[in-house]
């Protein structure tokens, strides 16, 4: 990565790439993240209500479980898994194709630092956009839970919000943000590495793409555990 930060004089060149990557990684991921978060929040609410139906606990507990679960774990991890497939595979395939078709060599021969030009904007865009998507997934997921609770008559909106407030810890959203930044770095870095160092032809691109998606998921899980142990 040392070479990636070497040529700050080409900032102008990379700014455009950075904006492009923010749109591709962040803005274009909004629909799938919204879909997954809404359904996760809704299913979590229904299942929590099912598990608590025979116990003598108030309905507000459902909100107390759903909201922190989304903030602490689900919004960040589900977003990361979706983006490991959508963004990680895309980056690895894009850079891998550029490698095998000699486009990366062409950049180098022109005198451009291909690592700065191709990798830096993608990793930075991941680190910036993953937290934004996490916040979005949190809101949609909690909204999904709230919506299904009201629609299915499981509990009222007031009870849901009251439950969420009861056990709310101010550190919860910060923990989720720290996770999402870490996941963003892991996924884009692995995808860039796999793509940039692709060998062979179409088979090599396929292999890099698969490895990027699988290894990203594995490292996301490891980082998830490590952060939970260290910070909670």
């Amino acid at each position, binding site marked *: 990565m040392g*070479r990636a930060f*070497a*040529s700050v004089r*080409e900032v102008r*060149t990379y700014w455009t790439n950075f904006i492009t990557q923010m749109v591709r990684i962040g803005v274009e991921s909004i629909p799938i993240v919204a879909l997954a978060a809404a359904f996760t929040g809704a299913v979590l609410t229904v299942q929590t209500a099912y598990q608590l139906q025979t116990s003598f606990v108030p309905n507000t507990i459902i909100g107390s479980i759903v909201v922190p679960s989304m903030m602490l774990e689900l919004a960040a991890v589900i977003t990361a898994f979706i983006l490991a497939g959508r963004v990680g595979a895309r980056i690895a395939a894009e850079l891998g194709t550029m490698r095998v*078709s*000699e*486009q990366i*060599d*062409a950049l*180098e*021969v*022109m*005198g*451009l*630092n291909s690592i700065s030009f191709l990798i830096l904007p993608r990793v930075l865009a991941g680190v910036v956009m993953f937290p934004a998507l996490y916040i979005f997934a949190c809101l949609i997921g909690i909204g999904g839970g709230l919506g299904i609770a009201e629609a299915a008559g499981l509990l009222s909106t007031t009870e849901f919000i009251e439950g969420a407030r009861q056990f709310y810890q101010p550190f919860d959203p910060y923990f989720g943000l720290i996770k999402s930044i870490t996941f963003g770095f892991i996924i884009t870095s692995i995808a860039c590495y796999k793509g940039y160092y692709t060998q062979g032809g179409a088979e090599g691109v396929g292999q890099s793409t698969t490895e990027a998606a699988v290894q990203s998921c594995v490292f996301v899980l490891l980082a998830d555990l490590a952060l939970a142990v260290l910070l909670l």
Partner: protein
Amino acid sequence: MIQIEHLHKSFGDLDVLEDVSLNIHEGETLAIIGQSGSGKSVLMKHIVGLLSPDRGRVLVDDVDICSVPYERLREVRKHFGVLFQGGALFDSMTSEENVAFPLEYFSSRSPAEIKARVAECLELVRMPDVGPKKPAELSGGMRKRVALARAIALEPKYILYDEPTSGLDPKTSNTIDELIQQLAEEMNVTSVVVTHDMHSVFNIADRAAFLYGKSLHWVGPIDAIHNRDDPVLDSFVTASEYHVGTHPTASSPS
């Protein structure tokens, strides 16, 4: 001037180049010939520092590009234009954006001057009308010509061609050969052409370097390539379809 001194390169257990030494003189067109897998493209990639040798060195205008810092290597590379085998055009850009790319990043030209230079380069490769088209919309020969326009945009001192005529029909191959000759004469560039197409070699080259068995087997002027005393070289040269029946000593069919 480019000097290659005692170059060794292997990939894992596979030795590709062993003790290759070669000088490429200013203004000449040198063809690096040899069978597929003989290390021609590997040698070419060493000339622009895309590969590092295991041993030996490459000097470009007396700068050892194998040991200079990366930033210095980037400066040296700006003297080169390279036509890659598949063109290596950026497929997200149009043809004119591809040609404009190095000008935008490495020249102080104004947008109007860049536009004019792009038009000039596309005109030079006889492709004035393909500017708005993306690489996927072009044929193989057209892609190579646009890639050539991009390679010459910054008026390089050296142009390297990696298999410029491979996969092209004979007529398009002749057009590419003519362009290589034209650029060498008009821009007074030093050209290095990696090829196994002997038809091209006879058309464009001043000298040839023959790679065989991991090393440089023969170097000399193109007129001296009909070397009957060297069976390995002679066998490669006469194996060319182009050459059948034209070799001074080729036997007539009985």
